[in-house]
């Protein structure tokens, strides 16, 4: 008998404008001890499935139809108290943001004890020593150093990875039958990610727990899941064994997503770019046929009118499509031919032993405590070159970027731009640098002034040059065109755009003054792969059209591998390795680079083995 069976379950959201379906007739099963992956772009409704199972839907959301059984129990009919008794005991959750999911004013020990009381293992009457012993054992099982010490710590004293281990330990305390992990590694560094994934897998096998693993990372899903469910705009578009789904995708969407991801190893190939984006909740009602039709490369007339059938395409493998047999025909574009740097290209930018120390604590009468965010970094960049900077969070990538554009002064070292010294922060240097170097900021939410219209934002540089209104409007239209947005967008406010569109505006603003070097800080992280592919194409387009250099900061190695000529690896403020992308990826020299490469999900070794190798590192 299956542990979880979901049969035609729909969830809707009701407001003054009407009722909107968020999840549409989901139907799948989960066997005890198996891992089910939920994949799809953000907003597809992945998290909503977890909340539906927990019966903790946000306000105004409710289940409209269907049958949801967990362990033989009709979940839609259980009362609140009974439901609560299941949560934390038989059904456990691992969150996306481990640091935010622990109460900041309670110690780890207090929180574990509260959980033990809830699941009936702490039993308030038992002596202090007892629960501590249980807690320490649990923390030990997730490979935390000094578990006894951790019990007396507060969340802010621990790293995200440690917090996630604690939450995993808590989740498994009650030997749950089902674990729901909602993007448990998205907020973590690549190297930590692999270990956490390995740990979840390890615990899952040891306790025979079934897992619903929610992720937008297809490579990860492929690595750890038995079954996969692909979700698109609230619809279950494909369901089947992971090997089947990824080897022989039946739905064009699954195939397109796979091809939108730059390969981490092996042959270079082009990226498949899905146009546009997933329709929003409100617009779903008007769509008669297949919800994917507006973006589907295989769409034909009937797709827009007739809802597609749920076709069985293999053993236990279903796809919601009119012609799943055509899916394998979707081919990636050919590999890029750009990977030939002009050896005679002129030197554009040179940095030597650049460093930056932050004062962490000012002291009276004594030298202040400092923290070296960047230590003695050197780099050369030729005209037209694409340089990638990789490293984990806190390794100094963003600080280096801010030093290079001159947003902050250096603590030492020299920088040269087109042969002119730009180490100083004086007005002349700033103006010269401004003309030639611009920066694209990571988070468009913070980088775009919500009170300005898009047209104003992209031509902001002309404001100080006293550009006339007409000039600015013309330039705005040009820029929007160049980055692939329609000129009407100039009238919008950032809040009226999607994440990908905002990021384009963010790029356009930096392009206004036609800089020779663009520094892009994590501009594709946190975006869906389809949007990421669109933006990467945009950068390549700019390179072709403008012969511009780019320094691309990313924690995603495959993005750097896809786009850049050379790569620079940072670790704890230091440049530990730099070289041609292919050379570094094929034959890494620094220990840290090797570790980073090994941690990438996808074509490498299975997670469990990697995990073992990783532990040796920690």
């Amino acid at each position, binding site marked *: 008998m299956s542990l979880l069976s979901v049969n035609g379950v729909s969830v809707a959201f009701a407001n003054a404008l009407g009722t909107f379906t968020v999840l549409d007739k989901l139907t799948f099963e989960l066997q005890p001890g198996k891992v089910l992956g939920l994949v799809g772009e953000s907003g597809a409704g992945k998290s909503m499935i977890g909340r539906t199972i927990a019966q903790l839907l946000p306000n105004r959301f409710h289940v409209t139809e269907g049958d949801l059984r967990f362990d033989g129990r009709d979940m839609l009919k259980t009362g609140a108290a009974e439901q609560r008794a299941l949560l934390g005991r038989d059904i456990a959750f691992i969150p996306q943001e481990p640091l935010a999911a622990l109460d900041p004013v309670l110690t780890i020990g207090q929180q574990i004890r509260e959980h033990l009381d809830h699941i009936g293992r702490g039993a308030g009457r038992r002596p202090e020593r007892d629960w501590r012993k249980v807690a320490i054992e649990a923390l030990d099982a997730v490979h935390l150093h000094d578990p006894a010490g951790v019990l007396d710590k507060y969340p802010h004293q621990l790293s995200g990875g440690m917090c996630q281990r604690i939450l995993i330990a808590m989740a498994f305390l009650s030997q749950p039958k089902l674990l729901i992990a909602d993007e448990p590694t998205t907020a973590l560094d690549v190297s930590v990610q692999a270990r956490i994934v390995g740990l979840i897998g390890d615990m899952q096998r040891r306790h025979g727990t079934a897992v619903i693993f929610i992720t937008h990372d297809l490579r990860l899903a492929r690595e750890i899941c038995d079954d996969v469910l692909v979700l698109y705009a609230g619809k279950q578009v494909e369901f089947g064994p992971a090997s089947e789904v990824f080897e022989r995708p039946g739905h064009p969407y699954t195939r397109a997503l796979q091809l939108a991801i730059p390969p981490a190893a092996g042959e270079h190939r082009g990226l498949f770019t899905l146009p546009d984006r997933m329709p929003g909740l409100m617009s779903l009602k008007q769509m008669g046929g297949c919800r994917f039709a507006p973006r589907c490369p295989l769409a034909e007339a009937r797709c827009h009118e007739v809802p597609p059938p749920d076709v069985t395409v293999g053993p236990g493998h279903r796809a919601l499509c009119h012609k799943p047999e055509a899916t394998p025909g979707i081919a990636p574009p050919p590999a890029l031919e750009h990977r030939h740097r002009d050896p005679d290209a002129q030197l554009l930018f040179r940095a030597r032993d650049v460093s930056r120390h932050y004062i962490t604590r000012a002291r009276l009468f004594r030298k202040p405590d400092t923290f070296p965010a960047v230590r003695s970094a050197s780099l050369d960049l030729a005209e037209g070159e694409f340089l990638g900077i990789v490293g984990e969070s806190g390794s100094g990538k963003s600080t280096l970027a801010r030093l290079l*554009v*001159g*947003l902050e002064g250096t603590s030492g070292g020299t920088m040269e731009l087109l042969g002119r010294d730009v180490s100083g922060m004086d007005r002349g240097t700033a*103006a010269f640098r*401004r003309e030639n170097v*611009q*920066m694209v*900021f*990571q*988070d468009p939410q*913070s*980088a*775009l*002034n919500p*009170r300005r219209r898009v047209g104003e934002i992209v031509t*902001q*540089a002309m*404001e*100080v*040059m006293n550009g006339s209104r007409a000039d600015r409007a013309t330039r705005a239209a040009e820029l929007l065109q160049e980055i692939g947005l329609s000129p009407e967008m100039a009238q919008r406010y950032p809040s009226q755009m999607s994440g990908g569109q905002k990021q384009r505006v963010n790029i356009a*603003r930096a392009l*206004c*003054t036609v800089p020779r070097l663009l520094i892009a800080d994590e501009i594709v992280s946190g975006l869906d792969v389809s949007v990421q592919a669109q933006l990467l194409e945009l950068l390549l387009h700019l390179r072709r059209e403008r012969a511009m250099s780019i320094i691309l900061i990313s924690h995603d190695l495959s993005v750097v591998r896809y786009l850049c000529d050379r790569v620079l690896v940072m670790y704890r403020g230091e440049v530990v390795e730099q070289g041609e992308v292919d050379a570094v990826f094929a034959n890494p020299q620094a220990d840290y680079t090797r570790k980073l490469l090994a941690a990438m999900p996808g074509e490498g070794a299975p997670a469990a083995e990697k995990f073992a190798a990783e532990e040796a590192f920690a």
Partner: protein
Amino acid sequence: MPSLPLWLSNTRSLIGFTLLIFIVGAALLAPVLAPHDPNEQDLINMLLPPFWVEGSDAAFPLGTDSLGRDILSRLLYGARVAMTVAIFATLGATLLGAFLAHLAGYFGGWVDWLIGRIIDVWLSFPPVVLSLILMVGLGAGLWNVILAIVLVDWTRFCRVLRSEVMVVRRRDYVSAARLLGFSHVRTITREILPATLPLLITLMALEMGIAVVVEAILSFAGMSVGNEVPAWGQMIADARQDVYNAPSTLILPSFAVFVTVFAFNILGDGLRRSLDTRLTQTERA
């Protein structure tokens, strides 16, 4: 129906605004509306009750005080003092406080340190005590009251706005503006000020209410505009001796203070909602 501006599209703001129109109207039209000279003493008609009580006199609709002065006329003229103080003291405190807040929050470093220490010193006085002491030094008079309130209350703006400026300053669009060649002044006025403006406006509405209260307190203590100008606080102070036989002389000016402050508070609350400024910030003012 023509659509109202955003900041009025909220029942609360509308209630506050309507009340304030009446109060400002009463203040402006006081010479026309008032049946008597507010300082005219009529010793035959002392402590007349208001119209709803037996024994009232139609010539004095709200009765008279212990010197036989007409309460209605004094209330109307008192509104002039209250509104003048509310408007000018708030303008002054806003200008001074917002200027220093943006300076401190934007530049940080020693500028911030210095302004922060000044605020600390100011905050170690209860505002009422500080304004009383200032009034002792400055002497009575309408403009001195306004000056005293400005000198005390600029810190309310400065404290709350400063932390807001610091939040906005950390946004990447501020760095982006600098990278595009914006000067500090332009960055502050074009990128930061628009973001802090909603909070500023909300604080101003609340500050007007506070100014009315402070003026009432000062004139209650006899340290405000002076005896010859009718002010609500003074009417309340004068009425204390008659609580037993003429409670209305106490209640009416108290009610005037209450309604005015309520109007400003409900307007401020409405603004806070429609302009989406956070409650914890404004409440801390």
